[in-house]
């Protein structure tokens, strides 16, 4: 059986997004998808990637390739990340929260002027992007705008609403293709487990609106595993300041996901 995995750095492996030439660094081979003893592995994860990117690239892969004999494991990431299309350079731009972004209760409390870093999805486009004469201006405008929107225009609720829609559409897509699947996530903040709400490492504490409850109830809770990958890896992290799973952490995650898939008769 073939494994299709998609997620962020918790599935792609920690480290830089681009090398010194601006080329995107592919997922590392010690990550959990490669430790699951599957016949064939496609790992489309990207460091700093958003849930928008996960949906887009998963749909793209299964509309281009035969979905037969695949199982999909999707590791959802932080809802505050997002993706936009940038027509000027015909590319997708990824907006990833920076390590200094501190949000609590309401995003309006964010104290940092640059809450986002910007990644560009296609390596060839990236070079065009960097070569453009107005590159620095563009980067500044885009990051600054994303941060201003986060600080002054949107609440955490808005990011969660968009996340739930993205998950619902992924459900719909994978079911329409008859692809068996399991969902997990980076952290407890957006990890779904029936009748439980977690407030975890992300420090987000918000009252949900009735709308988010309605979207939440539309999600298929039974396709989620019990714990997010950060909780499965426990203390097996890169360092005290880098919470990504190390090689042992990835092996533990692989074991946990394999076990859950077997219990559910999916592999």
């Amino acid at each position: 059986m073939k494994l299709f995995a998609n997620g962020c750095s918790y599935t792609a492996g920690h480290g830089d997004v681009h090398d010194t030439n601006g080329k995107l660094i592919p997922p590392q081979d010690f990550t959990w998808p490669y430790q699951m003893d599957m016949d064939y592995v496609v790992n489309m994860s990207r460091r700093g990637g958003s849930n928008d990117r996960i949906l887009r690239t998963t749909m793209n892969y299964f509309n281009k390739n035969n979905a037969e004999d695949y199982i999909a494991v999707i590791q959802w990431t932080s809802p505050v990340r997002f993706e936009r299309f940038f027509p000027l350079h015909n590319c997708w731009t990824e907006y990833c929260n920076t390590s200094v972004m501190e949000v609590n209760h309401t995003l309006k409390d964010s104290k940092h002027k640059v809450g986002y870093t910007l990644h560009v999805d296609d390596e060839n486009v990236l070079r065009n992007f960097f070569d453009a004469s107005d590159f620095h201006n563009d980067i500044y405008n885009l990051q600054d705008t994303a941060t201003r929107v986060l600080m002054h225009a949107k609440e955490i609720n808005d990011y969660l609403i968009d996340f739930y829609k993205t998950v619902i559409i992924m459900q719909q897509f994978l079911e329409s293709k008859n692809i068996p699947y399991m969902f997990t996530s980076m952290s407890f903040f957006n990890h779904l487990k029936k009748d439980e709400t977690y407030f975890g490492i992300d420090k987000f504490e918000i009252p949900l609106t009735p709308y988010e409850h309605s979207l939440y109830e539309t999600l298929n809770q039974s396709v989620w595993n019990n714990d997010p990958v950060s909780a499965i890896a426990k203390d097996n992290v890169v360092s005290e300041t880098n919470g990504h799973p190390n090689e042992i952490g990835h092996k533990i995650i692989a074991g946990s996901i394999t076990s859950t898939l077997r219990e559910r008769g999916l592999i």
Partner: protein
Amino acid sequence: MKLLVNGCSFSAGSSMQGSVPWLWPEVISENFSEVHNISKAGGSNDRILRTTMDFCKKNMEDYFVIIQWTSAFRHEYYSNQYGWMNITCNVGDNNLTQLTNESNKHNNTIEVTDENDNIIENKFLLDALNKEMLYLTSINDYNIRYLKNVLTLQYYLDKNNIKYMFTSMNEQEHINVNLDAIYSKPTDVTIFEANLKKQLNKTNWSKQSLQTYMVENYISQNDRHPNEKGNKLIAQALFEELMEKHG
């Protein structure tokens, strides 16, 4: 059977004409035991999705749902201070496909209101939203947001076994007619948008948009909403299609 209608001013009536008894949901009501029209003039597709889900959750009776999707250039954000904010991005015609281009930005304006249609004038909020429109959001992003709303509601209604018909204000948002009409050339559609479109259940859409059904029967040159005759034509066309599909 009861009917739920949700949409924008094409279903709620334009704010210029005020309250009238001949809107198409009223005309079509003689065929239903009850009609709930929760449309709102100037409302967004985000609002349509949110309020439809809210209505269906609270009213589990035997409802048929007609959704009239509206302009992709409106959306809503939640605010702890203002509640649900309705945001209208007036994007200039010359800047539709390349919003990140510096040219012609003076044609773009933004309007923000709360749920009671009070204008919000918070400087930081308006500045952030204006910049989001100018630098961050391409026409593809507006379209993706729209398609995500349609797919989410499609999934919700199917999952809850609620019968429905989707239609739209005009051809630009109509899946069966020409959703790509807002682009200057077909190649501007990204693969992602094409993939999202593939997931739409076209059989649950009306054949044409309301603007097509009403023909030239609008209120005035300054108010292009359907007049009494236009509303009758819309009601007639939608009901005929409902009979064809659902009996």
